[in-house]
């Protein structure tokens, strides 16, 4: 839509800029707080300019963590979160692209039923089935392990559904041509279908990476050893100080660090991501 209406332009910009401020301001405040003395944040007047405590806050958190909060160094938690987010993202994509492939390209008995069962699991996210899932994971001895952290999150109806929708737009002739060219089903999947889906895969990767990164409740349940703490649950633990003010500058430093990886992933994959959501190139 190309329209030349100055007032409309002005209004849309106003709305957009307001939106950006609403989203960005708290992030800015968090960053500023992380650069000040511990008590600067609660003194009443919030500072809006960076202080001089930046290096100290960040190096404390990265190197040693906070004893009172009972958290390991931040780099360890960042590492755990990264491993978890990557396993969740890749696992989800791997499982769902295969199941979508089966549903779209094979005529097996109860195909439609299988699809609907997958689809119905949309209504059963981890939070809903958390107690039975915990029971299962505990019985399998997977508490305090990466498997326990990630496996229950990996099955994904959303991704299966998105891949199914995409595969249905891929012309059948592509599959037929590859059959003529002597490619079996898995060869077609590997040589044709996956390359054609690259943009969709990357878009889903970004979404699923962030989904894995922001998990809070589940890691809180299945990890009791510091060595498996993830960053998001770690932040919560930092705040749980009974007898004194939380060290806001350190907490905010951790928050800022925790935001970085998703931001980097989005920035890095932005081009592919937008392409995957908007373009259907076949």
């Amino acid at each position, binding site marked *: 839509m190309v329209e030349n209406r100055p007032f409309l332009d002005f209004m849309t910009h106003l709305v957009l800029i307001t939106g950006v401020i609403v989203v960005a301001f708290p992030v800015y405040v968090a960053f500023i707080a992380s650069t000040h003395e511990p008590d600067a944040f609660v003194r009443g007047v919030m500072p809006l300019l960076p202080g001089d405590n930046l290096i100290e806050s960040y190096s404390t958190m990265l190197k040693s963590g906070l004893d009172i909060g009972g958290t390991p160094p931040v780099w360890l938690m960042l590492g755990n979160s990264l491993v978890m987010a990557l396993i969740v993202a890749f696992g989800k994509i791997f499982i769902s692209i295969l199941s979508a492939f089966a549903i779209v390209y094979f005529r097996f008995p109860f195909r439609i039923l299988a699809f609907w069962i997958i689809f119905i699991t949309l209504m059963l996210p981890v939070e809903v089935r958390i107690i039975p899932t915990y029971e299962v994971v505990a019985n399998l001895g997977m508490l305090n392990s990466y498997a326990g952290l990630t496996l229950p999150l990996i099955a994904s109806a959303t991704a299966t559904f998105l891949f199914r929708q995409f595969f249905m737009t891929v012309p059948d002739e592509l599959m*037929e041509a590859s*059959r*003529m060219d002597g490619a079996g089903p898995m*060869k077609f999947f590997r040589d044709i279908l996956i390359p*054609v889906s690259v943009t969709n895969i990357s878009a889903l990767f970004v979404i699923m990476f962030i989904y894995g990164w922001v998990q809070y409740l589940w890691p809180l349940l299945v990890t009791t050893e510091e060595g498996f703490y993830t960053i998001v649950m770690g932040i919560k633990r930092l705040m749980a100080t009974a007898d004194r003010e939380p060290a806001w500058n350190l907490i905010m430093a951790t928050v800022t660090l925790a935001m970085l990886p998703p931001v980097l992933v989005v920035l890095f994959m932005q081009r592919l991501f937008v392409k995957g959501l908007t373009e259907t*190139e*076949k």
Partner: protein
Amino acid sequence: MASITLEGLKKTYSGDVHAVQGIDLTIQDGELVVLVGPSGCGKSTLLRMVAGLETITQGTLKIGHQVVNTLEPAERDIAMVFQNYALYPHMTVYNNLAYGLKNRGFKKEEIKKRVHNAAKILEIDDFLERKPRRLSGGQRQRVAMGRALVRDPKVFLFDEPLSNLDAKLRVQMRVEIKKLQRRLKTTSLYVTHDQLEAMTLGDRLVVLNAGKIEQVGTPMEIYSRPATMFVAGFIGSPAMNMVPLKYIQDIDNKNLSLNLPAPTDTLGIRPDAICLSPPESPHLTIEATLELFEAAGSESHLYIRLANSEQPAVIRTNGQPPQHEGEMLRVYVAHEALHPFDSRTGKRTD
């Protein structure tokens, strides 16, 4: 090289759709046979059964002497050109051509030789490193042909390969396909809904209607002796005029006796068989009103209505009509140019 034999081939889709209802046909070694018919008559289904992309409900399909009913497409040694080309979008032209050879375990040098050879024949050697997205429609079409060509298969199958091209390119590619087929002498089955394409391309035509064969023959046989009213109306442009016998009144000869075979009740007359001046041979003389004159360059069309009956008809001629629109004129049809039909069965009667 091989012949193709279809014996009682049937295809029934779920929900009782009888797409192909018993086809018997033999395609000789090296022949180019065109399947032609209106949209939805089962051409693609038939072709796809030969390709192995559709299961055969009933009947036998042989390539050479081998029954191939249950063979995978890749095992039938055939190649197919699709209407939308179905090029692999993420592969270069080179890899598009090479993919089938790679899967069949050809050596690298052999693949290279074959791809370059096919590319040269089709004049796409300049684009080998491009992706299909950066090619024009005509170039994509050539790549699709190339993919069939490199394999040097026993049989080529074409499913409306030219219908995504503009009119000019379509004519050009039509000629090239014919030349190529003449040169390679590969048995080919070509599907189109365009009767002109079918006439110009085929060694033989198979006219299909509603899943059944209406007529098989060379283009000229079909044009000059259409076996049914359907074929008569489908082949030739403008379409053949179908005039109920009772509307034909010869003004020179009131008691018309044409010696027509028994159940004839309709006469088919090609638009170019209606003349504006009397021919030498025995003929009908008919009065009509000129309704509309249409000049189309090398030829022109006259839309007329027969006197008394208001029956419309089209004349194809290459000159100006002597009359103005709205005036009466006399037209002449040689007796031998009449095609007698029985409208109840739709069949030719002589």
